[in-house]
């Protein structure tokens, strides 16, 4: 029998592997080479390579999978392997790299010394990739990962296009992962989209937001659409308001230069919190496939009542931390951070209220807040339901009965809790009690890191958990007028909250005006 007798393997469509039937783990991606631009950087060491190693350790990567680091540093393959070995040992959730397993994984690690802006480096990159294809049977399959400062994105994309690396010549696939921030306002996001899409098709582009790789965030869709009891109450009739919080207890650390140009709105709201908002508020998709899910998310963004520059000051609250203490340790103020201007007007805290003007959510406020140097690192979505329509227990000490709250905790302890009132035995009192589900204890298995899930999804060609072009632009369209309104306003008397507190007093007043309060987290 000849090779021809087998018939050419289909190049598209689902793989019908009969041995997969009944196995609980999903299929393994096809062998590919992941080219990491910015291979000497922090993201590569702290997140990407530990995630790839753990995928290999969990048997989720095929033999032949390869990593090709692209950076200026004067390293060779072996030096790069040593750097990554140390990085995995320091940063992997599974602990130090296991020697034999690492040796097997490291056989597929290579290094390509080049500058992002030198064409010659891309010519040799093409040759290097072809050599890896033939040595490791990677079939021309490539993932380009842009783990560089965002200023380099356009140059790298243009060079990849100019050197024909945006398509595989031998029938394989080519994809590109782009890290946040994707633009710094609507115009820059549109410009970057135009540059990227002049070289790659949208189906090849994976704009990553690691929040979408977290188990609880993914579970949000399962929770809403696989359980019959929640969806009927997930609307304006039963929900009073929704609070979305992403709080960090750290300051800007060594990101002062970037952060002082960005601020909390760009750094957190535009991506992580917008993602949480759309997943919370979206309608059921017609199918669990990338476009059906993202279509519904975009509809939410388009239904949000815009905040004009003139409304920016009343519809939002900004804060910047001053000196204080967190967990018993004194910390300096934001303006004393490295690479931060001493008169900086950059917000390290932001709160805003959004309304989604559709049939499901009309009139229900969504409060978003995010800040640095807050007392705890915590992220959650809290859906607060309306109180019972009549106070049946008015004669008992229950006037302060607390409303039902469904809290979806994203970090640090991923899980879901539902608070409801319950009678105290033997007394005429009602006390809030909570039903808790915790990922850490309920399944007896460790949740994978967000990057593990997202890298695997990209290799499998599943873009569901990545941001689409129209999504990123709709998000910027919503937030850019706020940035414009702030820019035109008088400077604020920053700092206006102490490090280690829950943000400026104005944020509490902002909620109090609506007769509500932030959750104590």
């Amino acid at each position, binding site marked *: *029998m*000849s*090779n021809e*007798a*087998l*018939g050419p*393997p*289909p*190049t598209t469509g689902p*793989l*019908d*592997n*009969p*041995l*997969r*039937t*009944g*196995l*609980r*783990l999903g*299929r*393994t*991606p*096809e*062998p590919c080479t992941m080219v990491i631009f910015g291979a000497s950087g922090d993201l590569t060491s702290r997140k990407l390579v530990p995630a790839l190693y753990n995928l*290999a*350790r*969990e*048997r989720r990567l*095929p*033999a*032949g999978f390869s990593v090709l680091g692209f950076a200026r540093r004067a390293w060779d393959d072996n030096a790069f392997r040593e750097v990554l070995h140390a990085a995995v040992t320091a940063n992997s959730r599974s602990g130090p790299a*296991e020697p*034999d*397993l690492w*040796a*097997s*994984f490291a056989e597929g690690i290579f290094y390509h010394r080049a500058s992002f802006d030198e064409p010659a480096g891309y010519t040799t990159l093409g040759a290097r990739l072809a050599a890896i294809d*033939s*040595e*490791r*049977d990677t*079939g021309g399959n490539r993932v380009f990962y842009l783990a560089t400062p965002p200023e380099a994105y356009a140059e790298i994309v243009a060079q990849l296009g100019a050197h024909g690396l945006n398509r595989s010549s031998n029938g394989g696939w080519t994809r590109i992962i782009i890290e946040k921030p994707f633009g710094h306002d609507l115009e820059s996001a549109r410009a970057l989209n135009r540059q990227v899409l002049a070289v790659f098709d949208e189906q090849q582009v994976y704009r990553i937001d690691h929040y979408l790789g977290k188990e609880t965030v993914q579970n949000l869709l399962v929770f809403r659409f696989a359980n019959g009891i929640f969806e009927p109450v997930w609307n304006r009739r039963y929900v009073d308001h929704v609070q979305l919080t992403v709080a960090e207890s750290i300051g800007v650390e060594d990101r002062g230069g970037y952060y002082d140009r960005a601020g909390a709105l760009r750094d957190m709201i535009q991506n992580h919190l917008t993602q949480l908002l759309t997943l919370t508020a979206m309608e059921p998709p017609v199918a669990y496939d990338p476009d059906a899910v993202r279509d519904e998310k975009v509809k939410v963004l388009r239904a949000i009542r815009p905040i004009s520059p003139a409304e920016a000051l009343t519809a939002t609250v900004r804060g910047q931390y001053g000196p204080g203490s967190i967990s018993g340790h004194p910390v300096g103020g934001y303006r004393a951070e490295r690479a931060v201007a001493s008169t900086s007007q950059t917000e390290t805290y932001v709160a805003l209220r959004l309304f989604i003007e559709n049939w499901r959510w009309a009139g229900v406020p969504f409060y978003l807040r995010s800040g640095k140097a807050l007392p705890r690192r915590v992220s959650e979505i809290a859906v607060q339901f309306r109180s019972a329509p009549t106070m049946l227990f008015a004669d008992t000490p229950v006037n302060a009965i607390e409303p039902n709250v469904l809290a979806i905790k994203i970090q640090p302890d991923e899980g879901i809790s539902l608070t409801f009132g319950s009678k105290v035995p033997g007394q005429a009192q009602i006390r809030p009690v909570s039903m*808790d589900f915790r990922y850490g*204890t*309920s*399944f*007896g*298995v460790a949740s994978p890191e967000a990057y593990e899930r997202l890298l695997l999804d990209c290799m499998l060609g599943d873009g569901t958990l990545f941001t689409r072009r129209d999504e990123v632009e709709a998000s910027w369209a919503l937030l850019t007028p706020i940035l414009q309104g702030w820019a035109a306003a008088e400077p604020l008397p920053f700092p206006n909250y102490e490090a280690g507190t829950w943000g400026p007093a104005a944020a509490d007043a902002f909620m109090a005006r609506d007769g509500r309060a932030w959750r104590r987290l």
Partner: protein
Amino acid sequence: MHVTRVDISAIERELQQLWQERASEAARTGQAVTRALTLNLVARATEPQLAERISAMAHELMASHPNRAILAICRPAADAPQIDAWVQANCLLTAPGVPQVCGEQITIDAHGAATAQVASLILALLVPDLPVVLWLPGATPFNEPLLPRLIGVLDRLIVDSRELDEPARGLVRMAAFERDPGLPAGSARRVALSDLGWAALTPWRELTAQFFDTRPLLPHLRRIDRVAIDYVPAPGPPNPAAGLLVAGWLASCLGWTPLEDAVRVVGDTLQLQLRRPALGDDPNTSRPVMISITPVTGTPDAPAGLAALRLQALDGVTADFRVARADTAGHVFTTAVIAGHPPLHRLARCAEPALIDLLAAELRLLSRDHTFSAALHMAARFASQLV
């Protein structure tokens, strides 16, 4: 606490008291205690050491499957009829400030003729509306007198084909149970069967399936015509159940048909002869398939279980796929050698799973495992020729 004359209401009272004590104790230390039950786990032991191991596992399962464990220690050979029962809480150790999650265990210790009362006690002690899982460790689970008495309430029966004293006969019996567990005619209930021996094969099945997740290699799967399964036997007579289940899995997934008199015994090796379907529309491409199952000697500390699984296509383009234990304990080496491709190999973790992990994996299944069912029935067809 022992209840000398077994009385259901006394056991229930004991349980209630146990929870009140727990709650008071927790309140004193500023902790909360939560009783959580997601299933009834009924297990039978024949001697105290096994009972201790089962009890430890029920406790450990609290992390993933909070349960009411009912552990029946049945010693029918004892002379004096006697039955005792006692209760205990199984709690997870938690971090400070986190509510403590607890399940509960009722142990019934029956001797002599009193063992006949055990099934009726269990029936009365089940938590309503929760799944009922019966775990029967041991060599002859289907001879267990509890089984027919509890079948009407069971959702899942868990056995272990690695422990069967007559593996061929046991596989046939398992397949018969899977087909007809003995429920009353017309019953709408279904009883799923789990085999911890099958569960232990999952990493091997995954590693084998992974070869064919690759588009260029997938077509070779339909061309496989030789399979070699090596296993390290446990002390005692060789038990080829795992090998037969792997053979059954491949045959049922790939549509291979056993030939008449498909099984031959050559020394310690079992040889199975099958026929694979034609490739595409050409009937001439149907070919014989040979599977061998061979016990091999492992290193002194090698655990019993699969040692290597090799799939080959020798007719035409040669393709050779192999998963084999590596020198590094708890790891395997996977190799794919296909004409026209560079050889592919890697080291992968594949530790022998602990019993608790196998049990937890089976408890995660909510319904019948159809892949197991098809593999088991095919394995039983082979095994029936060895009986």
